[in-house]
């Protein structure tokens, strides 16, 4: 993504506001761009967040590397997608 003023906080704010929680975060900044890798947990579909991040103007591309689902409770089926997204 472009390393513009506010770009990182805009991305992180979108993640939290849309109902996803951050587990790990790695940021690498070069001259004018930034690469952000995140691992995120939520009961919401990670693909939706990807599209919401992708429409941010500083974001150049979003890659969903993996989405894992797990059954956490025997009585209820809880989806816990975890994914790693990165931008270049």
């Amino acid at each position: 993504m472009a390393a513009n003023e506010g770009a990182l906080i805009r991305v992180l704010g979108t993640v939290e506001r849309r109902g996803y929680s951050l587990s790990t975060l790695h940021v690498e900044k070069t001259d004018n761009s930034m690469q952000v890798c995140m691992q995120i947990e939520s009961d919401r579909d990670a693909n939706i967040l990807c599209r919401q991040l992708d429409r941010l103007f500083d974001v150049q591309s979003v890659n969903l590397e993996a989405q894992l689902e797990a059954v956490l409770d025997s009585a209820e089926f809880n989806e816990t997608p975890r994914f790693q997204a990165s931008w270049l």
Partner: protein
Amino acid sequence: MDGSKAQSTTTKTGAQWLLHALEAEGCDVLFGYPGGAIMPVYDALVDSDIKHILVRHEQAAALAADGYARASGKVGVCLATSGPGATNLLTGIANAYLDSVPMVAITGQVQTGVMGTDAFQEVDIFGMSLPVVKHSFIIRNAEDVYATVRNAFAIARSGRPGPVLIDLPKDVATTKVASSMASLKSFQTTIDEPEGIAAARALIAQAERPLLYVGGGVNMGNAEWALRSLMRSTGLPAVWTLKGLGAVEPDAPFNLGMLGMHGNPAANFAVQDCDLLIVAGARFDDRATGKLSTFAPKAKVLHLDIDAAEISKLRNADVGLSGKICENLLALAQPLNISEWQKKCRAMKTQHAERYDAPGDGVFAPALLKQLSEAGGNKVIVTSDVGQHQMWVAQHWRVNRTSAHLSSGGLGTMGYGLPAAIGAQYAKPNATVICVSGDGSIMMNIQELATLKRYGIPVKIVLLDNSSLGMVRQWQELFFAERYSEVDLSDNPDFAVLANAFGIPSFTVERRDQVPAAIERLLNDEGSLFCHVKIDPRANVWPLVPPGKSNADMMGCAA
């Protein structure tokens, strides 16, 4: 953009470059309020051809810019100083964000050297507005002003429109630079090429009970004509949202009305029964869907939206088309054999047609609104505030184009109506702009009567006064065991006198037999006019889907 001007060596201040960029964007009117940090821009305005409308509260500036944008289809622009000026804009910015309205909001900021030191009238408006803007900028160099403003306009109107904030520090506004075009670049949002048209057409061909669910995106995508063409050629029935009002021809045979919490029963029953929901520029808002898991339970979903992030956000789409809605709607046309479904829809429409034969001689607000809209016809633009009157407008106002009905849909901003009407009047000077308000809402931006007077803006106000916060009262009656809490407004000011104090002519309507003369005056008086209408404080909006219930469970409607 402006390649020749890019060679210019004229020296201007940042503020002058800002206005130069606004002029280049065709901006002819600004809604704003001056103050310390924005003073360099107001100084430059003295030499500019752009008209500035001084509102009396910054929130009204943002809402007027919103109304201007909705009525004109252009980008609305508002202007405020730093600190409280900027925070007062926020509600209007959020309003534009939730309803996808193209807006550029410009705020003054303290000097760059003291930013971050809690300087006088310093707030981090850039940070505060992040969740409610499409994008935002802090301009830190005067060289960047021109390009940033041009880019802000391009972003605001591209793809799914929305508000863009520009925060302009005072020293940047006063710095003189030879050219502010260095970083100007061509800006375009890429839009996905539509895929899946064949799959979409197949879904429609296979459906026995297809139904269009029309939202505000149809108007934003200039696709009303395409929607109407599709409806005519296929006979598809349609329901619409608050923001979709006017997209479907009022007299179209299979126009089933608004869906949702206060929707027409025919619309809600059709949604519950359909086997294919064709979602056109709508977003499954909870006021439209009721309990989401029970919404359109038998239907597959075909979702058309310019914003790919809306597709499958709340309801999984069997097919999603994330391109320009106009082209995609046209591509769906095909002969359909749905006569049984049409027959059923027609029967439901007849069965649940609105009734206007309320007993008594008091003013029946739904009938007044229907009669006023029919008498006014296409020359009228209506704005509404938020509450019971807003739903009565949505249910009963007859309107043939979406841009003639301005309402705060997503945010539900009480106080929207009057400033939006001011904006709409500047967008369409020859229109008869009518603001329908309530006695709660009107007080949220009552100070804008001074703006009407100052500029001679001929907005007409129809105040439906039930001496209470009617919608909240209705909910307390129905869902809180009649435990009324802070909804009584029986000590309201005398609104007719209040309007006169601002220099606005006024009159009061208390009986049904006074309505025809009131309509005559509202449509024929040349200047601004305040029509105070007293209505039954016990009147409720029907039907009503209780919160958290299915749209099939409407109160106040026979199944």
